[in-house]
């Protein structure tokens, strides 16, 4: 079977890079972009990274020091970022139709069938084209599988050319020996802990581990990652990702329960298990619902109710999910009923890597806003370029943050003005 050529295109510090296109003064400046309400750092330039600013940190914690050193913070401007994303993706689509948009700033390209003598040259050209035409710098990793391409891209980020090709098994093995297993695509916290317990530390260790043990501990996803590390494509490009849409954990009680505290205990266990499943699959959720019900088969008053919490911020942390679930339970619990079952459902799941976008607080109907944006962009560009964008759009008129840049590409009264 012919080896595939998969390229992962990953925009560098994407939100910050978008801000720089119309703001050339920011070129070498340490910049961060903040989540809605200027909460946390969701994007940082390499200069900001060099100042030790970690991803996700609440801005107030570093504001003083950061600004003292010349750092600049921008409020997130999703209208702008979404527009730039669509531009980048449309350029990529011109190079190959075999493309999968993975997130707002990442896409996999299948270059196997592109007639080119030198794939590296082609990829360098892709990178140069995006930089010139859209103004966004990207890093591109090339390998024979998606998991390896992700490894290659992380190496590309550190290289001066912005491109990295894993082309031989020898080279690959060498690189995987020093690549930490927890940095691999698809390996979340829970998987990492399991691998640690098995003394599997590097990607090389994982690749060579006993397949049965991996299958047992990390489920089918772990086995797929193993195969991909070996160079065998198991997670296809352009396929629907084998990603869960929902996690549900519920159980009937052994005997009927009347007391809220007892139900809370059971529910907490269910939520904890649900959060484990999330972490095993590197997912986070935006939506949680809990339910309680009485025994339908008994001749007793019946009660069923559920409560939905919509505005989670891409959660996978058990304590947060448990708290939300218990809050929800309190809303629906009614005294006087003999309860038989309770449960939790986690919905609106996305891969954890896309979490940077989820650190915004969604406005109202989160999912509907996403669909709205996707439709707008698709209409503009005439094709279904945006398959998955886990982003929210600031409501127009909803508190323009003073540090939010203009919507340079979408609003007539916010165009860039050239003073001539």
């Amino acid at each position, binding site marked *: 079977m012919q080896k595939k050529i998969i390229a992962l295109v990953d925009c560098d510090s994407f939100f910050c890079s978008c801000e720089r296109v119309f703001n050339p*003064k920011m*070129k070498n400046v340490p910049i961060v972009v903040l989540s809605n309400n200027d909460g946390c750092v969701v994007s940082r330039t390499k200069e900001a990274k060099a100042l030790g600013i970690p991803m996700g940190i609440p801005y107030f914690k570093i504001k003083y020091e950061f600004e003292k050193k010349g750092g600049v913070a921008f409020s997130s401007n999703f209208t702008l970022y979404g527009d730039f994303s669509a531009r980048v993706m449309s350029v990529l689509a*011109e190079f190959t139709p075999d493309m999968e948009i993975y997130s707002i700033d990442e896409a996999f390209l299948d270059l196997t069938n592109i007639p080119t003598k030198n794939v590296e040259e082609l990829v360098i050209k892709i990178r140069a084209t995006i930089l010139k035409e859209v103004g966004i710098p990207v890093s591109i990793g090339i390998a024979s599988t998606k998991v390896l391409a992700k490894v290659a891209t992380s190496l590309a980020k550190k290289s001066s050319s912005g491109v990295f090709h894993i082309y031989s098994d020898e080279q690959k093995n060498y690189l995987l020996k020093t690549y930490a297993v927890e940095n691999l695509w698809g390996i979340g916290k829970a998987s990492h802990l399991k691998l640690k317990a098995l003394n599997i530390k590097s990607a090389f260790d994982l690749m060579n581990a006993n397949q049965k043990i991996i299958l047992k501990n990390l489920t089918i996803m772990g086995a797929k990652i193993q195969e991909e590390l070996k160079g065998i494509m198991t997670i296809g490009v352009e396929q629907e990702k084998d990603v869960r849409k929902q996690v549900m954990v519920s159980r009937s009680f052994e005997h009927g329960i009347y007391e809220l505290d007892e139900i809370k205990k059971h529910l907490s266990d269910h939520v904890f298990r649900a959060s484990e499943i999330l972490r095993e699959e590197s997912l986070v959720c935006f939506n949680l619902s809990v339910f309680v019900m009485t025994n339908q088969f008994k001749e007793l008053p019946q009660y069923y109710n559920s409560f939905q919490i919509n505005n989670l911020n891409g959660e996978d942390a058990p304590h947060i999910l448990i708290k939300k679930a218990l809050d929800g339970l309190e809303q629906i619990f009614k005294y006087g009923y003999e309860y038989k079952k309770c449960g939790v459902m986690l919905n609106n799941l996305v891969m954890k890597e896309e979490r940077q976008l989820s650190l915004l607080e969604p406005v109202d109907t989160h999912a509907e806003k996403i669909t709205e944006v996707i439709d707008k962009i698709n209409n503009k560009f*005439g094709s279904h370029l945006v398959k998955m964008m886990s982003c929210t759009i600031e409501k127009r008129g909803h508190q323009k943050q003073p540090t939010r840049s203009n919507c340079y590409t979408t609003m007539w009264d916010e165009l860039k003005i050239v003073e*001539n």
Partner: protein
Amino acid sequence: MNILFHNDNMEQSGLDLNEFLIKRRASTFILRVTGNSMIDANIHSGDLLIIDRSKDPVNGSIIVAVVNSEFTVKEYFKRGNKIFLISRNKKYLPLEIFPDTDFLIWGVVTFIIHYAEKNNSSC
């Protein structure tokens, strides 16, 4: 291969200015200009400029450039290895770009949009 081509039916559905003005969506941007340094090139204060970043300038092209981190609209002229940014206004001198000048070409202006009537200040 231009995947952005989107009007391949023969129906007469009206003239689409987007189709005419925007050849390449991904690389086309719109800026507004103020000031008079290009007035003799028919660029007036308040005009809209359509810029295509995919194009390369030739002598005489109107370009948007960034000089010392500031945007500017000028006529591009290159002779040998020397690049000049020319203002089309007799009050201004050409600007020579040296190897160490903080300079980049942001894009080539493809269209200038303004009202025909002199009294309308800007689009």
